[in-house]
């Protein structure tokens, strides 16, 4: 079994606003093994991107801060590290790609230059070595005529090609962890299929781990080893991809899966809906955050935030419905690495 790469404990991230500190994530705990893909799924405002930015500590530049918790990456606590030391890790050991490939690239530099930049910075390659390696990277991500393309500017490439370039930049230093925040959301489905295939192939070849953030349950089903479902800043359910899709437990996960229209079966009938809307960060409900929209809400749900209950050794959910059905958290301490 591969070793542990990343362990997040009780990560709470907040933003300072006029009305005081607003928490965007609250006590998020996650674990990632080497060569594993973890998908963070959830709707807008659920805190998936904030979690990713917190791991990179880029949240410091987005007006937020890590308030509490530990981010253990290969024995180093990223939550406490200063920005100077983090520069050694960012782009080198942990890399990130974003949703919009066009705006992630600098329009006034050739794509070859942009890949070579991080190679010179982190691996100390000379200009000509870095350029050679940049062309190799373009070849690796499946860009035809890499030597020619390296001399082109981002506007000369299509959206799918740009996303390949962004992936090439991210992987140039062979990071141990790639964080991909909605990498295919801006792309058409046929191009999305190409990029997902590419990510899968590169993960095998380079032996890296991936945290993939997506709102698309289909993408998660296809890519994930494990899935963590987020709602209003907390993880409501986490488990293997099989467990989440075949045995979803939290009413939010169940509702989410049921409200997606299928590609087979009966059409035209009324779709399952989750009543109400996603709460804003300023108006997080008391108790379980999902209780105002939950069809099974009980008294305790309104007053007390649920613990993590373990349904199997490998599958936890934060829902009071599972209080009696499982051994509770104390018997299966999260710190022993059950995640």
């Amino acid at each position, binding site marked *: 079994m591969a070793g542990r790469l990343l362990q997040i404990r009780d990560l709470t991230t907040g933003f300072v606003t006029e009305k005081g500190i607003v928490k965007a994530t609250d006590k998020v705990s996650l674990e990632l093994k080497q060569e594993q893909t973890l998908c963070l799924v959830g*709707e*807008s405002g659920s805190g998936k991107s904030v979690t990713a930015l917190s791991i990179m500590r880029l949240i410091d530049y987005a007006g937020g801060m890590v308030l509490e918790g530990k981010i253990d990456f290969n024995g180093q606590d990223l939550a406490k590290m200063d920005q100077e030391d983090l520069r050694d890790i960012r782009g080198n050991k942990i890399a990130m790609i974003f949703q919009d490939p066009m705006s992630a690239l600098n329009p006034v530099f050739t794509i070859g230059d942009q890949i070579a930049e991080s190679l010179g910075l982190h691996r100390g390659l000379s200009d000509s070595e870095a350029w050679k390696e940049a062309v190799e990277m373009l070849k690796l991500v499946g860009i035809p005529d890499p030597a020619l393309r390296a001399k082109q500017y981002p506007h000369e490439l*299509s*959206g*799918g*090609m740009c996303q390949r370039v962004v992936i090439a930049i991210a992987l140039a230093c062979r990071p141990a962890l790639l964080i991909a925040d909605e990498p295919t959301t801006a792309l*058409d*489905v*046929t*191009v*999305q*299929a*190409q990029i*997902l*295939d590419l990510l899968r192939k590169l993960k095998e070849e380079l032996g890296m781990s991936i945290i993939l953030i997506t*709102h*698309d*349950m*289909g*993408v*998660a*089903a*296809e890519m994930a080893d494990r899935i963590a479902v987020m709602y209003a800043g907390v993880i409501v359910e986490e488990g293997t*991809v*099989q467990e989440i*899709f*075949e045995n979803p437990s939290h009413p939010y996960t169940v*509702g*989410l*899966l049921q*409200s*997606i*229209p*299928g*590609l*087979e079966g009966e*059409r*035209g*009938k*009324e*779709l*399952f*809906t*989750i009543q109400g*809307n*996603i709460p804003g960060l300023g108006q997080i409900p008391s108790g379980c955050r999902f209780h105002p929209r939950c069809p099974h809400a009980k008294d305790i749900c309104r007053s007390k935030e649920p613990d993590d209950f373990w349904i199997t050794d490998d599958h936890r959910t934060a829902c009071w419905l599972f209080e009696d059905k499982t051994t509770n958290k104390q018997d299966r301490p999260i710190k022993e690495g059950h995640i």
Partner: protein
Amino acid sequence: MSNTAKATPAEKLVEINDLKKYFPIRKGLFNRTVGHVKAVDGVSLTIKQGETFGLVGESGCGKSTLGRVILQLQHATGGELRFEGHDLLTLKSRELRELREEMQIIFQDPFGSLNPRFLVRDIIGEPLRIHRRLSSKEIDSEVVRLMELVGLDASRRNRYPHEFSGGQRQRIGIARAIALNPKFIVADEAVSALDVSVQSQVINLLMKLQKELGLTYLFIAHGLNVVRHISDRVGVMYLGKLVEVGETESLFAEPLHPYTAALLSAIPKPRVSDRRERIVLQGDVPSPANPPSGCRFHTRCPFAQSKCSQVEPVLTEALPGRQVACHYPLQ
């Protein structure tokens, strides 16, 4: 299929024949036209009364332009376009304006399509003020009725759009679209910007309104599972042309055009058992300013033969109720 109104969709509401929309590409000192982006290039299609016609395709295929040309929000370059028998391309602007009551549009972006400085009551009431002679009291009671119809709290009509969530804003857009009791609504990516749990609420609303008001929809979207759920018939567009048209269920079950097949297989399914081999298309969609010769799909088609690059296939009936534009259809 589920209701009787859809069972006899005999009457033709919209008839399109060889419709074209070219955008000129201008360059240089004198703004000379150096070419055209053929956004819609010879599309023929009939939308029947009471049905939902789904239009799918990737970005840049011309599906939104087609929707806008049908509503005459953009002028056609050529072809024929009839709505209830009226030739929209030769109609005088005043007559067209009257017909506009019958056809409305719902936009994708619930943030950009509502004027942020208008109260919700004014946004929904605006079409009534323009097209109907009603007192402000009558307009107000009509706004209340419309808001209740789309599932909004009518007591919030004196608020601004930013006070509503994305899904609620889309409901405001829908209320505005149905204010004049139209026959035909173009829903251009109407649910694409919404989160899944909210998206299903809006889809249910659109289907409910169709049943209650006897609406006909042109449902433009790139989310194929949503299109399948809501549409009676589906048209697949690629680079300005329709490549396949058919009844929803049979088209999704047995696509005949290789592009339709590739598009369907590219969708990630929310199930673990489905991690299977896909048809992954190579390359990107070519530029509509300079489409490939012959069949426009031949540069990416896994089954292309020499004929495909030379002769352009015509949309012809391949099965009952199914048209396909391919020299070598699947099966």
